[in-house]
């Protein structure tokens, strides 16, 4: 993996040689992902007719998105009756539309689409459906129910509510009256961020609390560090912080460590392995994380297989796969972290 990308850069630049030899050849051994395999119950596990699953997701530009693709692949590889046909993630919506068109032309049995933008991909998903290919829509929902057979995704609003409930309970346990609560949101222009924030606000309001300070980062470690640093300057004292995303959380924690602050506890979001390890260790500010877990993409592959094989979910009384499934944003704390370590993704 290290040799090929290196080649282009070495042309004409002798200066590179030394570094490359020192690190390039030996480096680049990223930590192994923890693919989240979902155990199928009942006779769902029994092999069925051979099916081809087409998969399309946006470019994996950070840990959570990378884990979505990795999980899908791992799940498919574990199913002997599935042929997995993935397209390489693109950076823009047009590219993803083209990828889905390719998969339609190849006449895969079922499509799993995680759209970069649900609205923009609705049309091509509808065309797939019309061409007789059922579509499993993951996470960002299409504009029209005609465009998909099954939707599976996370609960952004519920994520905010559960974070609020946990924080309120913890503050009450610590006997803190009139707490100062801060929120480090993700990219503000995304509906998912707005839903998370709304859920958090409403959840706190039910406990008679409110968000005192709010900043928005961009789901990257760097932006998390920048926003956390400014936030900690702005507030001399904090009681609790909810950070929407564990990828940006790496930066947030760096900012907190640099400021040397320990006056509050932090609740994360998404459920990365790193955060779970910190929760388990229990010696820092990280106290919990609210799941929005990429294991949903593993489940999407299982659902796609059952759809293509015209089977239902054996644990349910229904003959068919349900129309929509919302994953639960459980709060992972020190008490239950061991139960969730298997779905913790590498950020």
């Amino acid at each position, binding site marked *: 993996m290290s040799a090929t990308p290196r080649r282009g850069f070495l042309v004409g630049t002798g200066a590179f040689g030394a570094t490359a030899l020192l690190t390039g050849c030996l480096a680049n051994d990223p930590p192994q992902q923890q693919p989240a395999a979902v155990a199928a119950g009942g006779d769902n596990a029994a092999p069925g007719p051979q099916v081809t699953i087409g998969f399309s997701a946006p470019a994996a530009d950070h840990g959570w998105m990378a884990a979505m693709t990795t999980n899908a692949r791992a799940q498919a590889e574990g199913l002997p009756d599935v042929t997995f046909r993935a397209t390489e993630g693109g950076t823009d919506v047009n590219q993803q539309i083209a990828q889905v068109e390719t998969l339609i032309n190849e006449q895969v049995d079922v499509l799993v689409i995680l759209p970069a933008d649900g609205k923009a991909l609705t049309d091509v998903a509808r065309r797939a459906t019309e061409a007789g290919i059922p579509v499993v829509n993951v996470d960002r929902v299409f504009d029209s129910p005609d465009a998909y057979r099954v939707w599976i995704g996370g609960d952004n609003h519920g994520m905010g509510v559960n974070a609020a409930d946990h924080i309120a309970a913890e503050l009450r346990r610590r006997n803190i009256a009139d707490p100062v609560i801060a929120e480090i949101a993700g990219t*503000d222009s995304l509906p998912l961020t707005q839903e998370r924030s709304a859920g958090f606000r409403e959840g706190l309001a039910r406990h008679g609390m409110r968000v005192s300070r709010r900043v*928005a980062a961009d789901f990257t470690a760097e932006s998390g560090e920048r926003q956390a640093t400014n936030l900690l300057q702005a507030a001399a004292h904090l009681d609790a912080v909810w950070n929407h995303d564990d990828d940006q959380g790496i930066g947030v924690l760096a900012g907190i460590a640099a400021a040397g602050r320990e006056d509050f506890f932090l609740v994360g979001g998404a459920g990365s392995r790193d955060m779970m390890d910190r929760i388990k260790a229990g010696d820092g500010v990280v106290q919990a994380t609210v799941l929005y877990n990429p294991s949903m993409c593993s489940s999407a592959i299982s659902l796609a297989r059952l759809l293509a094989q015209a089977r239902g979910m054996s644990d349910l009384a229904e003959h068919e796969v349900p129309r929509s499934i919302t994953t639960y944003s459980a709060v992972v704390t020190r008490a239950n972290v061991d139960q969730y370590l298997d779905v913790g993704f590498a950020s």
Partner: protein
Amino acid sequence: MNEQTLTPVDTQPSRLGSWWARADIRLIALVLVLVGLCVVGYATRPDAFLTEGNISTVLRLAAAIGVVSVGMTFVISAGGIDLSVGSMVALCSVWMTTWAAQSYGVVVMVVCALLVGTGCGLVNGLLVAYGRVVPFIATLAMMASARGLAERISGRQTQVVDVPAFGAVFQADLLGVPVLIWIFAAVFAGGWTLLNRTTFGRRTLAVGGNAEAARLAGINVRRHTALVYALAGLCCGIAAIMVVARTTSGASTNGLFYELDAIAAVVIGGTLLAGGRGSMTGTVIGVLIFTTLSNVFTLNNLETDVQNIVKGAIIVLAVLLQARTRRRSSFS
């Protein structure tokens, strides 16, 4: 502040006297904007704004983008543009934090960042100078491929630094001031001296002002252009070290939009986008303006979208102001 200028407009005599007086006016305007922001910051949060901790925070946040902007000032002064700085920061940060580099320790990590940065910058420079590729295109290509390579190397995962010595050096304080701020100051001082006090600087401005004239004057324009881009790459390597020190990790998402922030800072700082005139001090004040803006907004718990609107307004204002001073001086 003493700034070098070589454009014909600036060498004409004017009511304001010699050229450095006009350079002063530009800088004074920028300083006034910065002071204005500080006044707003102090007026709204007297308890938090002018504290030692907050000033140190602003400077540390400005450090990485400031160092990148110093490199960008050279490139733009020489009549070029570098769109790849953000991607180069990402690539350097990832390269220096891959596990093998980390296992060789802090020195190898730092050397990696500097070499990779310089190397990428040199590739840009060679493409522009000897390959005759337009700077916009050459660096656009680097912008895409360096980010891609960073994603490839990191597996799109954030590479956390596990070398205690690295943190001990780059997150430490020296004489009560964070090491990062020292590095930022050193790079600025070095950049200022190089641009204003050396043959290299004079040649940079000459190449940017009129490449043909510079060639006839005996300057090896191609070699000089290549060196200027390599210098910008080196700055990206230094910035990557700073970003890694701040975030304790290397990621392919590091340095997003640095090219735009750096170009904005350089242009409002008074460096001509067409080349031939460069103001290192202006650039650094530009960076400080944007960083302070974001700090003041966060202190007052304001939304980020409003912050972006104000940022845009400041860019337009500063450039309009400079256009006015330039017109006045050339018409007088």
